[in-house]
């Protein structure tokens, strides 16, 4: 070893870029550098800025900014539309995630088998993921439209509703929440299904064979073998989706803008409407930061599960 190191010594302080790139202690930081820089610029700085805004009295059209402590948080927490938004955020995120996991598991189980036209089903399934979100959601806007709704038309054609009984999908509180959840599920489902499919196909085939030989029926097999084995992956998909549902506002912004009467208003849309459209940057930042502890907890859970999944 010593002779080898001595032999290599004259080459080590190579001035050329190629020489530097051969050394892992240089190459590593160089490769990860752009990513760190990117995250610092587009995530780190805005986040710190938001922290600062939330304890100031900044607003659009005013160039002064004073420190006001927790005044914004206290003011926001007292308003009824904020309280509604908190409840809505949880309903929206949790209900949609439960639906995504259940439907995603069912779909992944179906796609695990071989059948004719499987490629077509996969293609259809991935379509919502490939399509631009806003465009897809605008499509849904038309599907839910109060006058031209194809959904109502279909229901009427099937004889399930009368011509006078058309639903105002986005205009009635519970229906509106149901609709935005449905569209969000439609959007997240492909990703969750692909993650779950990967998890399911990583279970050794022998284990399924053993369960069949051991006499497990369909449900016992599903709930005592398959689901527990895919649970770490399922949690990863769930937490991932949860973060998405907590922070994303496109679906709600395009479909309902938080209406009717704030019944689909969630924290991310409220922060946007207050901070950007209402011009009160300080309160908007405070609203957005209410989500932070929650997302932090989810992210920590996410990392712990990911580590445990590696061990198994």
């Amino acid at each position, binding site marked *: 070893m010593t002779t080898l190191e001595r032999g290599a010594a004259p080459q080590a302080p190579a001035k050329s870029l190629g020489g530097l790139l051969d050394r892992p202690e240089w190459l590593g930081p160089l490769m990860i550098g752009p990513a760190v820089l990117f995250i610092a610029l587009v995530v780190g700085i805005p986040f710190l800025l938001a922290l600062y805004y939330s304890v100031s009295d900044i607003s659009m059209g005013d160039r002064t900014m004073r420190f006001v402590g927790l005044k914004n948080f206290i003011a926001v927490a007292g308003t009824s539309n904020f309280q509604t938004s908190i409840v809505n955020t949880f309903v929206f995120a949790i209900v949609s995630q439960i639906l995504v996991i259940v439907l995603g598991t069912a779909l992944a189980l179906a796609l695990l088998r071989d059948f004719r036209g499987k490629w077509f089903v996969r293609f259809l399934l991935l379509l919502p993921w490939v399509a631009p979100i806003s465009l897809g959601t605008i499509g849904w806007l038309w599907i839910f439209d109060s006058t031209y709704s194809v959904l109502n038309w279909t229901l009427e054609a099937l004889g399930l509703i009368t011509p006078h009984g058309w639903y105002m999908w986005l205009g009635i509180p519970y229906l509106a929440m149901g609709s935005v959840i449905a569209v969000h599920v439609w959007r997240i489902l492909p990703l969750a299904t692909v993650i779950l499919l990967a998890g399911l196909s990583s279970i050794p085939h*022998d284990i399924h064979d053993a369960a069949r030989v*051991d*006499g497990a029926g369909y449900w016992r097999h599903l709930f*005592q*073998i398959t689901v527990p084995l895919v649970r770490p992956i399922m949690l990863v998909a769930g937490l991932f989706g949860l973060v998405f549902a907590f922070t994303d506002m496109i679906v709600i912004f395009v479909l309902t803008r938080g209406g009717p009467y704030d019944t689909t208003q969630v924290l991310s849309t409220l922060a946007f409407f207050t901070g950007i459209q209402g011009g009160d940057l300080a309160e908007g930042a405070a609203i957005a930061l209410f989500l932070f502890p929650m997302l932090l907890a989810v992210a920590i859970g996410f990392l712990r599960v990911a580590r445990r999944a590696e061990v198994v």
Partner: protein
Amino acid sequence: MAIVETRDVQKLFGDVRAVDGVNLATNEGEFLVLLGPSGCGKTTLLRMIAGLEQPSSGDIIIGGQVVTALPPRARKIAMVFQSYALYPHMTVGKNIAFPLKAQGTPREEQQKRVQRSASMLGIGHLLHRKPRELSGGERQRVALARALVREPAVFLLDEPLSNLDAKLRTSARDELQQFQRQVATTTIYVTHDQVEAMGLGHRIAVMDSGRVRQLGTPQEVYHDPADTFVATFLGSPPMNLIEKPEYSLGFRPENFLPREVYAKDGHLFALPCRVTRLEYLGSDRLVYGVTEGKLEGHRVISKLPSNISVFMQPGERHEFALPEKELKFFDPRTGLRAAPRAL
């Protein structure tokens, strides 16, 4: 206990005949080994007996009942997989109890039977561990205990020793045999390892290309091979085969010894050889050579036990011989065993 029978069982995967018309029947409580090279169809046959694979044609009969259309759980079988296929999220105790739970056995009865089969395999102290905390040998016992706990009519074992290291495999083989004799349950065992097959089986079915080439006791398949495949598959090194247009001649390397080793008056077949290479293997010496004389020009191997200290050197010509009764004749076209003939 039950007799397992396969009747003209075929399995096609596309155009490939994985199993090509297999007729087998075990005896009551027998240890039957399916032996063959990889891809010979032995595992597919076992999986069809288990019900994990549906035969393309033919029938599987277990205990006198045609079970071809029945799912695995209705066949009263238990299977041990090559990977053991333990449920990684369950403790050892829950793994063993799983088949009983699936049967709906009462909880108390479950515990009693788990204890019994665990202590029979010496893993009673591991019941609260997870499979990943166990060694290879312990996992194999858990898999056996899980198979045993249902008191099945038939055990199906798919290369259960191949994941163990060489030393452990020898002791596990011994334990497996004792275990099978003790429970006296019909067992079908798949392996590609001829030592395992010879050591464990009451009978061996030697398979190749989806067919059973020979079914017989270890002695029969070794000493009286039905064809050249069986002759050259078994034995290490395999049987020497001298192929002539009118006959093929086979003899075992351990019978093919220097002339001076045999008594002078025996019925011997002499075959001079030019030694090309020597291999020293500790307990044996392998002598590689090329035949001379009337069967000139064939490569042969002689296996000399280390207690025979005849001196030999590469390049030198040496007289070899073997007892005439150890010569096996085969039909050169079909490869099947043929009647002895004068040479």
